[in-house]
């Protein structure tokens, strides 16, 4: 029943990886048997602090199975995001479910994967108002606000921009905090995971299910 924390992220994740929305949006779509890799930089601006908290690393969208968020700096840790679980892995430590298993977000994940497959805007439309849309050549940008009263408490506004893929996302929270995410070096390929990527997915799916 408590899902404030990761709702924010789940929604952000939708935007980051899946904004195949609307008239404008990523022109390339990750198919279930494809993998999208790239680098991210996250700048977290907390209100009251001058310098933002900056982290960066790599992300991997594994078809319709899940997303790996691999922070490399200033510390190394992985986050495995799947339909059923959100698992955090710190080096040398057992994986920890950061969201209680019973509160799994099948629905949100459904939106993510649906959009990844190129599902149209109406799924997104259920949760967000589209405030503005801009298109210039292959580039596009739009601004969203959450529809539900509940989500409004978690986030004020989201803006997403990109061309072939999503490149920039900004999430503004009601307390004045702001997360800015930028994505670069996108590589879309057929599904083949490195051993450690597969190992991370195995935490959730078990080794038998590895591709």
């Amino acid at each position, binding site marked *: *029943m408590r899902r404030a924390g990761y709702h924010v*992220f789940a929604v952000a994740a939708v935007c980051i990886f899946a904004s195949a929305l609307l008239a404008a949006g990523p022109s390339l779509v990750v198919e279930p048997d494809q993998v999208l890799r790239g680098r991210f930089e996250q700048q977290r601006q907390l209100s009251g602090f001058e310098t933002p*908290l900056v982290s960066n690393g790599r992300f991997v969208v594994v078809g319709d199975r899940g997303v790996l968020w691999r922070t490399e700096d200033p510390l190394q840790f992985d986050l495995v995001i799947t339909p059923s679980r959100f698992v955090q892995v710190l080096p*040398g430590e057992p994986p920890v479910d950061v969201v209680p298993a019973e509160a799994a977000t099948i629905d949100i994940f*459904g939106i993510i994967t649906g959009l990844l497959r190129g599902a149209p805007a109406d799924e997104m439309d259920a*949760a967000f108002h589209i405030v503005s849309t801009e298109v210039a050549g292959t580039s596009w940008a739009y601004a969203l606000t959450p529809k*539900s009263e509940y989500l409004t408490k978690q986030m004020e506004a989201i803006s997403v921009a990109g061309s072939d893929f999503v490149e920039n996302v900004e999430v503004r929270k009601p307390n004045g905090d702001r997360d800015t995410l930028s994505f670069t070096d996108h590589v879309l390929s057929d599904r083949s995971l490195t051993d450690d990527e597969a190992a991370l997915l195995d935490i959730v799916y078990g080794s038998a299910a590895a591709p």
Partner: protein
Amino acid sequence: MRLASALFWLVLVGGSLVHVADRFRDGVALSSDLMALLPEEDGQSVRAAVSQASADSLSRDIMFLFGHEDAAVAESTAAAFARALADSDLISETGDQSRRAAEQELSALLFRHRSGLLSDTDRLVLRSGQVSALYQRALAQIFSPIGSVDSRLLLADPFQLFFNYVATLGALRDSLVSSAGGTVSGSNGKTYAVVSAKLAGEPYALSFQRRFMAWFDSWEAAHTATLSGDGSAIEILRAGAIFYAYEGARQGLNEATVIGGFALVGVIVLVLLAFGSLQPIGLTLLSILSGLIVALSVNLLVFDSLHFIAVLFGAGLIGISVDYSLHYCCERFGAVAKPRERLDNILPAATLGLVTSSIGFLTLAWAPFPGLRQIALFAAIGLAAAYLTVVIWFPVLDRSPDRKANAWLMRVATEPRALWHDGTRRLYRYVALAVLAVAAIVGGSALNVSDDLRRFQALSADLVSQEQAIREITGLEPGLQFYVVTGSSDEEVLATEELLRERLAALRERGGVTKVLAISQFVPSEARQAENAALVQQHLGTAARERLRADTGLPIDIDDAPENGPALTLDEFRAHAPRALVDLLIPNLGVDQHVSIVLLRGVSDVDKAQAAAADIPGVEYVDPAADISALFRTYRKVALILLGVSVLVMVPVLVWRYRPHGAFRILLPPVASVVIAPCVVALTGEPITFFNVMALVLVFAIGIDYAFFCRESHPSRLNINALANGLAAASTILSFGLLAFSGIPVVHSFGLTVFVGILIAFLLAPLAERTNGKDEGLGGSARNT
């Protein structure tokens, strides 16, 4: 003389009536608290008080989920419902607004005392010295895309120790006091908004049930009508004892109407057929009613309060007196004109029946169980009074002439006599015996018992599936088991809880239980708070802070560790915590002891949960459902044993009057029916419960009556006697046996046992008839012929 005794009896019954009416006007509450049935020395403990308080509290919880594809619709409907509910006088919980204020106050209080507060996980990590893991975790939290850090909180609590403590508590609190206004996503694409509340009234009180359901139904009717306008209706799921109770009461009432109607019509048709008049019904009712009134009056004099189970079974057992009434009435078929002679003909058997039944009931009163004692006294007094009514009033009231018995009824009723005594029916006899033997052997091997409370009620399938859906959507687990922790001070209680929770943590690791909820998770003992503060100082002091500042670039004040103030006390917490939480974990029981409750969720290994606390002084394991099952198990066993004992006690009386051979023949029919009936019930796949055993007590008492009437009857009147037995059996089956058609499992099973038992007793009763007088006992010489 006869008139004088009739008047005297009238004064007694009338006096009882006045007494009972008077007590009921003062509001004699029939107790429905099952724990009141426990032996008295058990009934007064803290454990019982806690069980009761917890059951009361749980039974008042209600929860609604409003589901819709559009989350906004779900939320706004839930909000409107919550407002309407709060505006009604049906719930006791305060609204959202004051709760939020209270929550902030509580957070502020906890924050002030944060130096001594640690989540269990963090505490274990610090104790094991794996500080770097904790450090990395804190850092990951700051940089995680899922992280919900807040600048103000980060400075005050850079390692998120307080944050983790509050987060754990929040989850705990939610599983205790489900918050109104949250939303959950269902797997069907709908969003569900939750509203939960505590009822202001007693969910088992019919008047409150009706008021609540009327309110709910009218709200639902008004709102689903307007909502279905956009094509998709809102889905409303509900859970709570009141819904089950309301459905149960409705089902009970419907059944009572239908089954009761059939029984009444059946008895009237039967009596009209047999007597051509309704007067025997009037007489029978008079006898039963006077029995009920006198029994109630005496029980109210002896016991402070009556239990509804005692009244239910006691009243049922008074129904035995139908035998006396109908035998009396059947005497008019025997060419006996004088009422006095009619009475004389049935008096020996009726008296023996009364004596043996009373022996049986009074044996039940041996055991120190208040429930059985009340049943025993109620039945014994009631039966005696009904008997006296037959003996004293019937001859005075009886004006009916002789008449001829209905030939068809006579033929049916004498069929069992023919079966046992007519040489030409030998084949049928063997077939009947073989059928009974096979039923006994096959059924006997299938016999199984159950004391599971769930068997005792019929839960509406629709409500069960709604509750199941709510559980799946919210992830709330049902939890009924708990520990009661007592001590001489709050500190002692908290320290004991901490010891207990360590054991439970180990049990949880092994999957024996999924969640533990205790007040010491919110408020550690003073000793533990000091220990926590020392652990933090030791492992996360200046050096760790300096490192965090370097790693994050945040202006963390290196010396800003929270000072060690006075420890958080239970009293402070109690004053600021949500009422519902306090009521659940540290209820005010009015006992002169410090008491807390440790709740368990998802217990899969009951034995280990019980064992975990076995050697900790001041901790007691409580499983209310198991307690009630154990109570019914005890009652079932005790009642069965006492039924056996009462048979043994009767033997000397029977041997004195009939010699061993005669005693054997008298006992054969009732004992056989009591043994075979449960076997036949077992053939239907149903387990035997306490209620079946009480049915057997009834069957035995009635069965031995039939045997007495057969035995004591003059050879020339055996057919009339058989008719009377047949009428008595038919009316008993109509009034109790029809309960076999009830949808309430326990009532159904009671009815089925009576049905089968009475049928067998009636069929076998002619076996008790005298055969050429060779087994005359001493008492037999006084036989009235």
